[in-house]
């Protein structure tokens, strides 16, 4: 069985700085890492590999430096690494990203299950997975919290709270799933795999390789229907904080008053 994991390299959100004057993200202010939500996607694939003897290929579209995240994925237990990189892919919105990724997936040919994260912490759209599924014309499920079982023909998953109820679904393969953070707890890489990861091959795909599947006008900035016209760094909501210490009585009275004012509860 061939499992494909889609990962994105993102800046470390705890450290990244935003230039509020220029309204841009200062990408050099923080190191990049694998999107935290994609860690769960990787672990999902690695667990399936152990259980069903599957092969795990990791695919990312990004700048050449994203190779680092692919090697990290290898260290965690994945088998093959693929980097889609080309200046012409730059500036892609979710539509162009998904279209380009789908072309790369067609080019790779072999896949039974595609796994992605719930969302990326920078793009934050949770759209790329379902759009990839649409371009490949395969079924998808988001918010997957559990994989009950999988064989060559189908996969059975539990979907968290869709339309106010959980669902157990069977999908014919090939299919795409987006997993939540609740599906597993990502494990750390081993030292041996880490060392090996420095040497392993990274397959690179550029626009020229994809001529059968996508043309230049459908990728990158040109292929993106949405355009960001402005970015604002919002001011945090101003709250006039009243902090109590040792004076429990006043604190309690303040809360009581608010509860009464809101006329709720009790």
């Amino acid at each position: 069985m061939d499992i494909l994991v889609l990962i994105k390299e993102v800046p470390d959100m705890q450290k990244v700085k935003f230039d509020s004057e220029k309204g841009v993200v200062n990408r050099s202010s923080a190191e990049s890492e694998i999107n935290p939500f994609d860690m769960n996607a990787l672990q999902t694939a690695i667990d399936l590999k152990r259980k069903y003897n599957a092969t795990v290929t990791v695919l990312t579209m990004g700048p050449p430096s994203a190779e680092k995240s692919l090697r990290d994925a290898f260290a965690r237990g994945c088998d093959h690494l693929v980097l889609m990189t080309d200046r012409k892919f730059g500036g892609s919105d979710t539509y162009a990203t998904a279209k380009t990724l789908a072309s790369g997936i067609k080019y790779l040919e072999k896949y039974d299950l595609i796994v992605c994260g719930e969302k990326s912490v920078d793009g934050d759209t949770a759209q790329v997975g379902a759009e990839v599924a649409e371009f490949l014309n395969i079924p998808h499920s988001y918010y997957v919290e559990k994989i009950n079982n999988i064989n060559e023909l189908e996969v059975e998953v539990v979907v968290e709270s869709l339309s106010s109820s959980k669902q157990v679904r069977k999908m014919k393969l090939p299919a795409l799933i987006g997993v939540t953070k609740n599906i597993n707890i990502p494990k750390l890489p081993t030292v041996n795999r880490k060392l090996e990861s420095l040497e392993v091959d990274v397959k690179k795909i550029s626009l020229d390789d994809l001529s059968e599947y996508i043309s230049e006008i459908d990728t990158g900035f040109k292929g993106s229907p949405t355009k960001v016209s402005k970015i604002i760094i919002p001011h945090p909501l101003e709250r006039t904080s009243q902090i109590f210490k040792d004076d429990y009585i006043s604190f309690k009275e303040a809360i009581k008053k608010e509860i009464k004012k809101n006329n709720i509860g009790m």
Partner: protein
Amino acid sequence: MSEYKGILVIAEQNNNVIHKVSYELLNKAKELAQSLNIPLNCLLLGNDGINAKELNYRGADTVFFMKSEIFLVAEEYLYKQNIVNFINENKPEIVLIGATNFGRSLAPRIAAALETGLTADCTNLKIDEDGHLIQIRPAFSDNILAYIKTAHYPQMATIRYKEFSEAERDLNREINIVELQPYFCNYDKTNIIKTLNDSDVNITEAEIVVATGRGIKKKEDLRMIETLAQKLGGVMGVSRALVDAGMTSSAYQVGYSGNRVKPKIYIACGISGAPQHLAGMKESELIIAINSDPSAPIFSIADYGYVGDIYEIIPNLIRDLD
């Protein structure tokens, strides 16, 4: 001039009951439709017995009601096929969908099939001087607000639940419902074999949330939080830390990877206030924080704070608040 005209709100129903996000979308859409002087229509996919008229009362000029029992199951592919066909025939210039879990799973498939853009999780919408839709949304884990425009038609966006108030109900509005047959009824690649009743907890609708985090030492102590919540007529919420520690289910989790809540009162007990937690609750109307560490970031967004031990304060509040 483009051949695309009008605004289309895609209503959501769960178990044949219209989801409130649909009325919120109609409210915002009415404002946009008035400023563009174009019709506001609504597409509802549901079954016999649903209260489609309500969408007229809430502002839809025409409700297109695609009626079939297949829509009682939330499955993206069939919904997508039917909606895409409708849009291709009717050509709205703006399509709005609620950013509920189902909406967020469905909308990207529709946008990709229509070969247009989609802006996720918008918190505001405006019209620019050329009549284009400006879609405003937080990105980068809520650190920035991006203003986005779509160069193709239709211009599509999903809108966060509870971002706008519901459209008022006007019983004098004309009822105008057009019933439709679904274009597609079969998809054999996804089979929903069971729907399980969700846990009864739905913390997003609560007016009071009493939330706790790593300040709680063991699972049994959650009872104290639940007791306070119940006493105030609210529900318990937790930080991710407690879900990761296996102390409770993710249905209670507040934050970026959990539920976004907007209650009237949010009481954070023993929660430090990490950005990912704040992302899920900072829009609460009133925030109260109790934490033993006076430098905990949660205090900077709190209206009222108490520096102290939750194991002392919570039992006192349980005793005193009534």
